[in-house]
């Protein structure tokens, strides 16, 4: 798909994370699929570092 096509065809969006983006698009009539995603450990750096060391073991 060429970039220009984005502006001439119907917009279909996959939104990851914050649902407010999904809701805003839906209010404009845009079709959106929501992916329920949150940052690992809720973004807590110490817990993320612990997780990095322990995953895949």
């Amino acid at each position, binding site marked *: 798909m060429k970039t220009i096509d984005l502006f001439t065809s119907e917009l279909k969006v996959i939104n990851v994370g914050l649902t407010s983006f999904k809701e805003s698009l839906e209010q404009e009539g845009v079709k959106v699929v929501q992916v329920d995603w949150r940052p690992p450990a809720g973004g807590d750096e110490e817990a993320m570092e612990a*997780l990095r060391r322990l995953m895949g*073991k």
Partner: protein
Amino acid sequence: MHQPSQREVRVVDIAEANKEALRRLVSATPKLVGMGKAIDVVPGMKKNMLLHSGPPVTWDRMCGPMKGGVIAALIYEGMAHAKEEAETLAASGQIEFSPCHHHQAVGPMAGIVSPSMPVYIVENAAFGNTSYATMNEGLGKVLRMGAYSPDVIERLKWMEEVLYPTLDRAIRFLDGMDMKSIMAQALHMGDELHNRNRGATSLFYRAIAPAIVRTTSDPLVIERVLRFIDGNDHTFLNLAMATAKASLDPARSIEGSTMVVCMARNGTDFGIQVSGLGDEWFTAPAEVPPNALYFAGFTKEDANPDIGDSSIMETAGLGGFAIGAAPAIVQFTGGTPRDALNRTLSMYEITIGENTAYQVPYLNFRGTPTGIDIRLVVEKGLLPFIDTGIAHKDPGVGQVGAGLVDAPMGVFKKAIIAFSKMYA
């Protein structure tokens, strides 16, 4: 807290350790073998000791319903005659408080176990361990919900003097009862074995009723005991909890395992224990269930924060984890059987495997999601989901509703940080 030095950090195969922890949990053979008085059978029980639910807590930090349960137990034991006297005694330092989980026991809600209270004895022959739980008193105004009025004490005395010997004789006459079989069948009858135990209680009733008739001569005792079992759908809850406890304990202390072996609340703190981290508790403040159904006349303002050892059911892959099997209580999950199934499906995201014996019919008899991995909880930000009873925040009132609550993320973060310090 134990802080290992760099030299002590151990390199382990977490996946293998978790596989072994799950194997032990699902291959348990829990059997109800009889009953006894707590002072006679519960390890470490003392005459001046009261067991309570959740992680350790002192009298001054206990929530209202737990204080109410302590008051009830001290009156029941004849150690106090009224509320004020019981409170003075509880605060005096003469009463030793200890978590049920430190004594191979579990207790719903306040979880108070006093020396004279009869307990069920569940043996896990496959691993040679035993667990204990008191009998269920029914709903509403009961000790485990913090009530201590004369009718509550009178019922407890009847349970000790009449119900206990009657049940004990019948259980021993049957040469014990296979708990796993009853629970597996109950999941096919619409139970999830935390907030719905109607199927399991019915199966228990069918099995024990002929044995009660055979071993008890007084027809009025037989009638009252059978009516008591039949009249309380949660009769089986305490047995299910003792079964879950007996099944989980062999999975404790496996080096390198990130599997949760205990989730428990004392109404003040929510605590977990993790297999590879020994008996250390990781705690965070307990929360009021945000989604709940309240009895007429009560609201969220009346609710105590989350309380009880009954989250041992979710730890074992039942309760909220199996709510997709229990369409009759879908109101707790906010709507439809599909919502309940989605709750169960989401728990597969944070568990190590499935229980081959316990199945969800509506998922083509898929095994329930079993063995919470602290790594998956922290990675996905997806919290273990518990469906639970709710006690009034003040002592003396009792149950006010039932609802849903997530385990707090704080306990899993603390545990994973401790785990990463102990293991490479």
